[in-house]
């Protein structure tokens, strides 16, 4: 049985052993094994040229990793928290996502930028961000969000193999709270494929990352009310697997989109737009959104009022059934 944190560690260890072009770099990833201990023990096994403790400078980390990637290495960068990724945003939007197009394939920057994201652990300001929409809006990068230990390993190994840059979001509150059997051997989960977590014919709950757990809890509560919810874990936000979403909505005729990020301009809006474009006539009710509010993520004492929980998802699902 492995947690998500252990599973990511396993994936990094596998990648470092499988291919000699992989380097892991970031703040405190070496000696301490990362603030979440995700990179624990890698420095000891692979040495300081491949597991690199960097200065505290996110633009510097991503910008130098970009150079390494162009030179043929395969950097896996850790940004300590998503809320600290913004100094690197210029590197990502201006260079990482563009060099292939700028050079018409002559230069590429295959690299993975890992960042813990999301709230729910009562952390300090900036440590609970869920700003994936500012990354899904960037052409030339992919955005991946696992919610299970198996997917975390399989998606990370796929991201490292990917010829294009991947932003890899790790739900902080699921790091150690979910456990499952994960094969010791290398596994790959394809980027760009959503997963049906739970089948059900009455309503589709579309979610990803941290909110997958709340969605499962909601589905159990709904089952007690004789409502069978189908849950789709998107796993990859860009490129989005619209087909899986649409197939489900066409069979349930009802949809609830759930994420903890702020609502306006959130990724849920994109999901809803696609359902509207391609599946409007199969809907029996307006699509519901269960999201964080359009506010700064509250600190510990009031955070629970912001983050969606199972009850909010249940209420939204029931609302689609009332229509």
């Amino acid at each position, binding site marked *: 049985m492995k947690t998500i944190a252990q599973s990511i560690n396993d994936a990094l260890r596998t990648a470092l052993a499988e291919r000699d072009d992989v380097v892991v770099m970031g703040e405190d990833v070496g000696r301490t094994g990362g603030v979440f201990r995700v990179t624990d023990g890698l420095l000891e096994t692979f040495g300081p040229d*491949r597991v690199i403790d*960097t200065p505290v400078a996110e633009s510097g980390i991503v*910008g130098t990793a970009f150079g*390494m990637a162009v030179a043929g290495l395969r950097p896996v960068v850790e940004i300590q928290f998503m809320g600290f990724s913004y100094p690197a945003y210029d590197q990502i939007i201006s*260079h990482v996502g563009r*060099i292939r197009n700028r050079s018409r*394939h*002559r230069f590429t920057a295959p690299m993975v930028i890992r960042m813990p994201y999301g709230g729910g652990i009562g952390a300090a300001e900036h440590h609970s961000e869920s700003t994936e929409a500012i990354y899904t809006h960037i052409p030339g990068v992919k955005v991946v969000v696992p919610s299970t230990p198996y997917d975390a390993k399989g998606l990370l190994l796929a991201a490292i193999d990917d010829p*294009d840059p991947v932003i890899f979001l790790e739900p902080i509150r699921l790091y150690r709270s979910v456990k499952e059997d994960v094969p010791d051997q290398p596994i790959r989960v394809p980027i760009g494929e959503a997963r049906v977590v739970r089948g059900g014919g009455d309503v589709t709950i579309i979610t990803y990352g941290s909110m997958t757990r709340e969605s499962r809890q909601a589905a159990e509560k709904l089952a007690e009310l004789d409502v069978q919810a189908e849950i789709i874990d998107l796993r990859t936000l860009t490129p989005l697997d*619209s087909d899986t979403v649409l197939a489900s909505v066409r069979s349930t005729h009802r949809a609830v989109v759930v994420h903890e990020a702020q609502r306006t301009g959130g990724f849920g809006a994109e999901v809803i737009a696609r359902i509207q474009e391609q599946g409007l006539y199969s809907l029996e009710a307006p699509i519901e959104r269960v999201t964080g509010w359009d506010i700064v993520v509250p600190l510990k004492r009031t955070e629970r009022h912001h983050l969606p929980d199972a009850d909010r998802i249940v209420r939204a699902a029931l609302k689609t059934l009332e229509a």
Partner: protein
Amino acid sequence: MLQILRPDGSLTSDPPVGIERTRELFAAMLTARRYDEKAMAIQKQGRLATYAPFRGQEAAQIGSAAALRQDDWMVATYRDAAAMWMHGYSWELLLLGRMGDERGGHPADDVPVLPPSITVGAHMLHAVGLAWAARIRSEDRVAITYFGDGATSEGDFHEAMNFGSVYRTGTVFLCQNNGYAISMPVSGQTASETLAQKAQAYGMEGLRVDGNDLFAVFSATDTAVRKARAGQGPTLIEAVTYRIGPHTSTDDPGRYRSNDEEVTWRDLDPVERVRRYLVAQGAWDAPWEAQVLAEAITDIETAVRDAESLPEADGSEIFDAMYERLTPDLARQQGDVQ
């Protein structure tokens, strides 16, 4: 400030290269100047998009690029066409980029020069990463990055200098201090007396050279490149020069600097300086220069013609290089364009 070749063409010390090599570099400077003039001229005719001229900076660019080995990385900016060409990037592709065609960003496979960075400062980090990768793979390739005085105010300058020093990457930071960042003089950019002195804060060597002196620039860069190749870390070189032309073809320098100042710098012209030296050495004659110029004109006219005659890309090609393979979404969007 290191100076080897005085404005009058006399030497302060032994030149770092022999006469034949000097003649080659002089020819390269003449050719680059011809390109710059041609680019400005056809921009005025609407045949190029915005163009950023490098007139006055030929010694800084040709002299530094001449110190590189062919497989060394170069990460430069929109004003560094002379350096990029010297390192193998063709005039045709440089023009194509300025005509607004992404295909200009694809140099030949054996040309390790990234397409020019348009954002200011971020690319210095790329040169650190490129050199760092070489070190991790036990290669002795170095990476040179070009930037201006304005870029030293960017946070990425600090991060690049710091990372380069901490990891002792084989990076050469070549700052062309050309006096202005668009309208802002260096005095408004920094309170430091020199830009080279900033290196000290990073535990790095900083060299300040006369950027209009071909020999000084070559010598400093050669020293920095050898040091980088030997694993002894990065160097910051401040080449003090002057942007004779406008920031770009849309700029009017009359709004922020005096004609007297421009005249002063015109007298310090880097091309004329090498010519004076070669004349004094008996290694120059007018027919030779005319021949060099004629060849340059032929090459550049050919490049202009080739770039302009390249058929425009098909509308569907705008999707082709976002990812290695089209994503399903892009495939659909591509279908919508057609």
